[in-house]
């Protein structure tokens, strides 16, 4: 193979995390371009004294309600004549169900119905994003701890719970696989029976669901060119999203035979389509209301209990309500655990020669979007580096554990942990500084980190982030005794395709309503639409209302994920505002009898031969005495690219550099983070405070999987730390003494005004930076996350034992 030969394989149909939601075939058109030119983000000027809200830290839209408790989350909503749902689960992770006896429960006080697999259409309706493998309710087997076997609907929650306890389930516990070693063993118990998989699926006799291979150059012969080769195995734990709002679902049957589904989801339109398909209803008869999620992080992307609630609502003819406990959310969402075997070669001066990765993702009992997590996460597994020879072979491995799903970082933090640690391993062998080895290998704008026909290149000046982080942590200053410093970088591909639409109404008094389907789950998306509309239409922030979370009135948006909203929905909102201005111009010309080509428009203005007119005044003249309003439509669409391993080029990359200074208590293994610096390449900060809050939040979340978070299972696959008591996430007291984030602005993104998507970057390489810092402080290298005090102490003891024997 020559150096630039390339081979890219994904074993089965590539499922784009964006595309998957539309189910659309890959667009065979040439390289994708969005309907709104993505690069068309430059701010138009010439609008005189128009107020600029974009680029300033205006207060969060709806923020006061959120922090004062006024905001209504799903569980705060009340509905008339509501019935309550309780789920029946088993204290096992893997079992064959032989009988579900519901008769005793069905006659208990207040009980409306009891539903198990036998009460649903046969064959069991199944749903899922990449594979339609998830049954509405457990169908003959339980594949993971917490999978619902039956559901009870009753007049009160107490009655439902009492009846749920009275449902008798006969089952035989079967052998399951709960970790990668078990799941990939030659004689492993299979999560999915081979008969349920396609006959031509080469992996049907194993737990491997899908594989991906990215390869260029020739790693086999490249080793000879390397001065130093390091080979290590890294592990990343299963962690759960832990949204502070557990969530739930309320489904109401409508008089016309349709359904209203209330669920705090990131993808109302995917949920609408899923329910419509399963219940064989027209989309127009399924109306999804998505109240703002209280945190989601990817965990509220895909439908979970909504299909079950829809069947229950239709069966009972009643509004059915299920509010999850935190324990139940642990059993419905998590990040894929990962094991990476990495072999990396360097020249004597620290340049990367080759990098070989075998990444196994432990994805759980159903596919969800995990195959896409695997393909997309390992696509950038080799990091933002200049590497002539790369081979990344990844597998999505099923297990009898909670189905894993999208989670901030989408498969990237797992592999970045390995790749960044390998850079440091090479640096140690070569006596190089961690910053210096990255300086030598990090690509510059336009250079490829992924080679071959679907080459992907740096879309930013990423060295600026590296240098800024080094400056902010004081890389060149003397290190206080007992401390260590680490620095790491990573990238994540943004969305690769998909449609976002927006409608904006410019009302007679100059106020405006923006309809934009992005779910505001704490990131503050609506604030940006408000800022954009205010600037583009020349109105006040307080005159802009944003409507979201209702598929009955808000036009289609693919999803709120992959940090895509600022770019995709932002462009759609911008486009809608410009559409309004063009419509005003056109009608103004018509009403005043002037030629359109003598007029032009600018943010907030119609420019006439007599001078600029405020847009509101122009619209009044245009509309005449009877008044009215203007409606603008905005579309942002990016097409995929046929044959591309991700289904299309990423619209942008999130790049982050994190640097950490840590002190280690050598007696206890406890880490004290003195400094934590996170620098992201953000394009343009549309709202600086919101950028900071996203980067701070992601940094702290990154410390979770780096320091303390892990789902612990017993040898039968039951979650041992099920709930807040023993599953620990960072609190504000666990935050580093000094946490500083910084955004690099080059106005070079595809979103409005040169923005890029943000919010995932700051947790991509937290672990790598912390691991390197802890290694420097202790002299001990740990390759398994999280770096709990116990793990650090144990490693120190082992090192001590080795030196004394």
């Amino acid at each position: 193979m020559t150096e630039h030969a390339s081979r890219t394989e994904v074993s089965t149909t590539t499922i784009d995390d964006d595309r998957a939601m539309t189910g659309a075939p890959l667009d065979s058109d040439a390289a994708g371009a969005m309907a709104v030119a993505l690069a068309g983000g430059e701010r138009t000027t010439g609008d005189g004294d128009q107020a600029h809200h974009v680029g300033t830290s205006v207060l969060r839209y709806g923020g006061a309600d959120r922090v004062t408790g006024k905001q209504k989350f799903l569980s705060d909503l009340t509905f008339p004549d509501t019935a309550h749902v309780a789920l029946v689960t088993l204290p096992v992770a893997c079992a064959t169900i032989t009988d579900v006896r519901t008769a005793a429960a069905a006659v208990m006080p207040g009980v409306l119905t009891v539903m198990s697999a036998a009460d649903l259409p046969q064959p069991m309706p199944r749903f899922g994003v990449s594979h339609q493998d998830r049954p509405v309710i457990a169908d003959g087997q339980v594949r993971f701890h917490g999978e619902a076997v039956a559901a009870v609907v009753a007049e009160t929650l107490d009655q439902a719970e009492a009846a749920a306890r009275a449902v008798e389930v006969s089952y035989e516990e079967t052998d399951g696989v709960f970790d990668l070693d078990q799941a990939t063993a030659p004689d492993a118990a299979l999560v999915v029976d081979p008969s349920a998989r396609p006959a031509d699926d080469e992996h049907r006799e194993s737990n491997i669901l899908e594989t991906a291979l990215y390869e260029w150059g020739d790693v086999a012969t490249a080793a000879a060119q390397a001065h130093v080769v390091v080979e290590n195995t890294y592990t990343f734990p299963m962690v759960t999203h832990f949204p502070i709002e557990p969530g739930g679902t309320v489904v109401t049957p409508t008089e016309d035979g349709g359904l209203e589904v209330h669920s705090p989801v990131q993808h109302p339109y995917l949920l609408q389509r899923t329910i419509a398909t399963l219940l064989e209803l027209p989309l127009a008869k399924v109306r999804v209301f998505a109240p703002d999620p209280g945190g989601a992080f990817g965990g509220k992307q895909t439908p979970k209990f909504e299909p079950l609630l829809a069947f229950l609502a239709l069966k009972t003819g009643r509004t059915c309500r299920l509010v999850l406990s935190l324990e139940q959310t642990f059993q419905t969402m998590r990040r894929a655990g990962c094991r990476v075997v990495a072999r990396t070669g360097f020249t004597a001066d620290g340049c990367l020669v080759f990098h070989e990765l075998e990444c196994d993702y432990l994805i759980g009992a159903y596919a969800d979007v995990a195959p896409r997590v695997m393909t997309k996460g390992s696509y950038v597994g080799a990091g933002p580096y200049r590497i002539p020879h790369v081979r990344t072979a990844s597998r999505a491995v099923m297990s009898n554990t909670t189905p894993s799903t999208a989670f901030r970082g989408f498969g990237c933090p797992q592999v970045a942990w390995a790749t960044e640690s390998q850079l440091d391993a090479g640096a140690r062998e070569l006596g190089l500084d961690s910053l210096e080895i990255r300086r030598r290998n990090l690509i510059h704008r336009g250079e490829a980190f992924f080679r071959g026909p679907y080459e992907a290149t740096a879309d930013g000046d990423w060295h600026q982030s590296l240098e800024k982080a080094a400056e902010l942590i004081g890389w060149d200053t003397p290190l206080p005794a007992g401390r260590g410093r680490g620095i790491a970088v990573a990238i994540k591909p943004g969305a690769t395709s998909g449609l976002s639409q927006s409608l904006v109404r410019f009302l007679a008094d100059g106020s405006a309503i923006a309809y934009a389907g992005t779910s505001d789950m704490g990131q503050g998306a609506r604030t940006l639409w408000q800022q954009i509309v205010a600037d583009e239409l020349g109105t006040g922030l307080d005159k802009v209302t944003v409507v979201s979370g209702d598929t009955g009135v808000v036009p289609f948006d693919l999803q709120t994920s992959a940090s895509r909203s600022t770019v995709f929905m932002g462009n759609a909102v911008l486009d809608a505002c410009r559409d309004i201005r063009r419509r005003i111009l056109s009608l103004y010309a018509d009403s005043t009898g002037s030629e359109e080509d003598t007029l032009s428009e600018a943010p907030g203005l119609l420019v006439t031969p007599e001078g600029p007119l405020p847009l509101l005044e122009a619209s009044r003249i245009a509309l005449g005495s009877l008044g009215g309003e203007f409606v603008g439509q905005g579309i942002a669409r990016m097409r995929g690219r046929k044959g591309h391993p991700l289904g299309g080029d990423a619209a942008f990359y999130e790049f982050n550099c994190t640097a950490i200074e840590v002190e280690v208590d050598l007696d206890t293994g406890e880490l004290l983070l003195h400094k934590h610096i996170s620098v992201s390449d953000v394009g343009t900060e549309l709202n600086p405070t919101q950028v900071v809050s996203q980067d701070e939040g992601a940094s702290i979340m990154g410390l979770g999987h780096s320091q303390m978070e892990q789902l612990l299972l017993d040898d039968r696959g039951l979650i041992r730390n099920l709930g807040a008591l023993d599953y620990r996430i960072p609190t504000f007291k666990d935050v580093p003494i000094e946490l500083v984030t910084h955004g690099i602005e080059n106005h070079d993104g595809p979103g409005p005004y040169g923005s890029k998507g943000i919010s995932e970057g700051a947790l991509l390489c937290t672990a790598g930076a912390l691991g390197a810092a802890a290694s420097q402080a202790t002299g001990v290298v740990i390759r398994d996350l999280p770096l709990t005090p116990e793990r650090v102490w144990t490693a120190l003891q082992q090192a001590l034992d080795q030196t004394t024997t």
Partner: protein
Amino acid sequence: MRYYRPTTTAEAVAALAGEAGTARVLVGGTDLLVALRHRTVEPSLLVDIKRVRDLRPPIDVESRAITFGPTVTMSAVAADPTVREWFPSLAEAALVVGSVAIRNRASLIANSANGSPAADTAPPLVALDASVTIASTSGERTVRLRDFFLGSRRTLCGPGEMVTSLRVPRPADGSSSCFLRMTRRRGVDLATVSVAAVVERDGRATAGLGAVGPVTLLGGPTGPVALWSEAEVENMVDELLSPATPIEDVRAGQTYRAAMLRVLARRAVLCAAGRRDAREPIRLTQEGDS
């Protein structure tokens, strides 16, 4: 489940006696309400004693002891100047229970006397030789806290009884104390292991040990030790820790727990020793809510 709010101790214990062990006393509710919600306890009757008029006052400082009533909260304990002067280890323990909101509600007596081996305030109270008064329809009895714990969640306070006061004797002049615990994170957490040490003027030491046995354990008292001698301190720590039987659980492995017990014991002894004569004000870190 019924709810009852008596106004006298006699009514309260009579109600408890009438339920044959299926009633629970409610004070702050920070433990009980969680258990009710998770159905780990399913009592027939809740006896809310917050309106009982003849309870001991929350904090009663006498010349030779402090007596706490059932309604004293962790926040009140931690803020009391006499507690901070006499029993710095107790103040330190009270300050790490739960969060600010929990501490404003949680009862010292309920936390220390409910029999959890990981209760934060039990080790200092055992080391300080506190005693509890138990009331029932047949009267009152007083027992040392050291003898009170029978097993995990099992104490001398039986069905029909409730603890009505907690008395902690004023420590001897020249002694001091220190409480340390290990948790998995800095924010709200349960103890993986905890140690409260009391060191006397002459170098004798006593320790309360939390989360390293089925009950809160008492180590020592040891003989006088030269605290500047590393070897002697190590021997003292050996002696203090001899009752401990750490096990593995979801919070830590057995080896790590045993090792951390040792680290904390050494640090707590030296900290308490250092506080004895310096007469410096005890600096207590205010734990924030998180």
